């Protein structure tokens, strides 16, 4: 067996280390030792999410696949010639799961006993697809029910509504699971063409965390995982160019909810795809949004005391596929007051929110939150993988937080929260008796 070049990453404050290597096939593998833990956790991920619906095929031609196919593929991969992969994991007493996001699909399991059997199974079922017409048909019915379940969830409906308003072209505006109509177009051939490109080992990473021996683990993976030729031709994802302005300034639906929900969003039509610059931008956004709208802010206090919001405001920032957006949302009995109250509040409160005291305290909070999360094996595995797919090492986040400065933050926030690029979406209570 070829010896692997193993890279060791460590952090002396956290007292944690991660070992990383690349197999000859191109597959990236990582291990984080966690002595004393009963749980061993593995996640096998590919950089393939719902926004990857246009890409170059093996012959260099541009392929356009139906919306929701990454998620559909995630479901169908569980069907193996030996039966459903969940059942096979269950025979080892392990529970497997999978998830699809805008940018990533991840297959995972946690086990204490029979870890090696389950790890072998994970590698086998992800690497050996078996697309069959009858299984694809069966999965379609299940996914239809899954989509309908989301359609009843007011939080999800408002989030999807906002993204549909902000973006006119970019696939971030489509639902991760697609729609009942788009998944009707999916068949074994389209699934296979996505698999061939996005599930190539060079596009994937296997992360394992737990009380294991590193050498044994890496040998096991190297021996079990498939060999692969390098991908034919250039492999590129194509994302449409987004205009700088929002698609629609507002939208709303009525549902059976007790209180109205609103989300205010801001569009960034241009964001880095990967690298430290992207991660810094995310940190600045999260920190800034928390300083402005979090429950220690003056703006929150004002809205809460005037009973304009029911509970906390939540906020978030996401950058993907070359675009980004910031969001802030909450529940209210006075939906007509939004987004005006927030837009006005941003202008009035931004300076004070970013005061030196506030900024330094918030940095402490971010560092503490980050360290606490290292108690979770799931966080370590998913956090590392997600950042790795953006060419960034999770351990470096502490230094990045420490290195943030206030002027940088202010400049970023002013540009991010540009009132000319906002949109709002509301879920309103359905009038009684209808």
């Amino acid at each position: 067996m070829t010896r692997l070049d193993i890279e060791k990453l460590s952090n002396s404050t956290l007292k944690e280390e991660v070992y990383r290597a690349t197999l000859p096939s191109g597959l990236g593998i990582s291990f984080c030792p966690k002595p004393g833990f009963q749980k061993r956790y593995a996640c096998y991920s590919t950089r393939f999410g719902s926004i990857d619906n246009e890409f170059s095929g093996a012959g260099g031609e541009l392929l356009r696949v139906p919306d929701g196919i990454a998620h559909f593929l995630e479901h169908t991969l569980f069907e193996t010639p030996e039966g459903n992969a969940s059942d096979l994991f269950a025979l080892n007493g392990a529970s497997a799961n999978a998830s699809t996001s805008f940018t990533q699909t991840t297959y995972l399991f946690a086990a204490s006993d029979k870890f090696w059997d389950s790890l072998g199974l994970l590698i086998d079922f992800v690497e050996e697809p078996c697309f069959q017409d009858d299984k694809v048909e069966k999965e379609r019915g299940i996914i239809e029910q899954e989509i309908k379940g989301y359609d009843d969830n007011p939080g999800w409906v408002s989030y999807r509504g906002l993204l549909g308003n902000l973006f006119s072209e970019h696939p971030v505006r489509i639902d991760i699971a697609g729609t009942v109509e788009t998944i009707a177009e999916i068949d074994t051939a389209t699934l296979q063409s996505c698999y061939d490109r996005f599930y190539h080992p060079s596009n994937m990473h296997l992360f394992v965390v737990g009380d294991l021996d590193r050498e044994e683990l890496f040998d096991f993976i190297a021996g079990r995982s498939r060999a692969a030729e390098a991908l034919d031709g250039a492999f590129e994802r194509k994302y449409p160019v987004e205009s700088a302005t929002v698609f629609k300034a507002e939208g709303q639906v009525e549902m059976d909810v007790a209180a109205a929900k609103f989300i205010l969003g801001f569009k960034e039509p241009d964001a880095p795809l990967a690298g430290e610059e992207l991660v810094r931008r995310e940190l600045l956004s999260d920190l800034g949004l928390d300083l402005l709208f979090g429950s220690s802010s003056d703006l929150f206090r004002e809205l809460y005391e005037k009973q304009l919001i029911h509970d906390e405001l939540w906020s978030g920032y996401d950058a993907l596929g070359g675009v980004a957006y910031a969001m802030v949302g909450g529940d209210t009995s006075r939906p007509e007051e939004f987004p005006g109250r927030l837009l006005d509040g941003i202008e009035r409160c931004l300076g004070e929110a970013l005061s030196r005291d506030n900024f330094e305290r918030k940095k402490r909070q971010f560092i503490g939150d980050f360290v606490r999360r290292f108690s979770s094996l799931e966080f370590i595995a998913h956090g590392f993988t997600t950042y790795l797919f953006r060419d960034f090492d999770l351990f470096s986040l502490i230094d990045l937080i420490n290195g943030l400065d206030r002027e940088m933050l202010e400049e970023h926030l002013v540009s991010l929260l540009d009132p000319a690029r906002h949109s709002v979406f509301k879920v309103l209570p359905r009038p009684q008796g209808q």
Partner: protein
Amino acid sequence: MIQNNNPPIFERFELDSGVSLSVNSNRKLKNIIVKMFVMADLDEGYTSRSLVPMVLRRGTTRLPDMQALRRHRESLYGCALSSSVTKVGEWQVVVFSLDIVNEAFLPAKESLFEEGLELLRELIFDPLVQDGAFSGEYVEREKEFLGTNIRSLVDDKNEYSIRRCTEEMCSAEPYRRHELGSLDELDGIEPAGLLDFYSDWSSRAPLSLYVCGDVDPARVRDGVDGVFSFERPEQKPLSALPAVVEAGEVREVREQFEVNQARLVLGFRHGVRPGDDAYEALALLNAVLGGFAHSKLFQNVREKASLAYTARSWVESTKGLLYMACGIATENYEKALEISLDQLEAIERGEISEGEFDASLKTIINQNRMLEDNYPALVGGDFVWRLHGGELDLDGLRERLAKVGRDDISAAAATLRHDTTYFLHS
């Protein structure tokens, strides 16, 4: 009661203040988890008990508003401080939680743990009091918010349908009460009355404090002793476990909403509690029936009939109930109901394959082992076992699970009594 001969998960200390302290010292956590359980019966005071923690979070004597509280938390490296109200059988429990980074994993050394404990004490026992009452402004505001929360329970149709099934099934029992309280009761609550109610309850309620982390138990005991140093009058004991109620004729309840997906929830009674002989068999029954993806409900309702995305079952072990639930298209009601009930009957007839039995046992044992790393779950599990007169013993559970045979699972299935069928549809 079962004897536990295995090394205990928690070191116990009975403190002078009447607080029962349980400490788990481990090398796995980067944070320190602290949970204080304040217990009561699920009686008429349930709405006040649900409101109190919401008023407490508004401010303490030293940190009199949410902003001051929150900023103090941020300066303690963003420790999380929260409360929740839950129902354990016919008891109501308010849990105050502190999750603080262990200073050993910070670049600068600070004595965060003691400061965190002090903050927790202030939150629970040193609320902002004005003229012998809780702040009127806070009480009014939180009453309104709690009212919205209770009304919002309808927003999540999965949770709502389970709650409605419970209300119908236990309509004449205290268990019908939702842990958040009721809108009717909420109206009459006043700031002074609420403070009196809380003072009486918190001074006499059984208190149980848990601490987990990379800590020295003796230091934790001293820290807790120093911070929670109050004197308390004699405790008011909790009521005994609720008697097992027999199911009568199956009740059928239907409600119509404008929904994309209908929800079917079936409620059953069994009366098996932690420490009972049939406890482990019931856990395995649930694993075969609907606890996991290999279970009969998932396999037959979802995988074979393609009727649902979710189809599952779970056990409530203090009141002694079992639920089955699935999300389906309205027109598939009869089909889904029939398939769901068929699964239970099949188990009763002994139709449990080698594979189903094996997967169920292994999955439960595996989960049980992994629980050793899940400290919030260990704390929650031990707390419930202690309410039943025992303590959490994962080794013992595994030994007893390994002795359960397929006959025992069929026998457990035969003791289930279908009580209520609830259907939320379009």
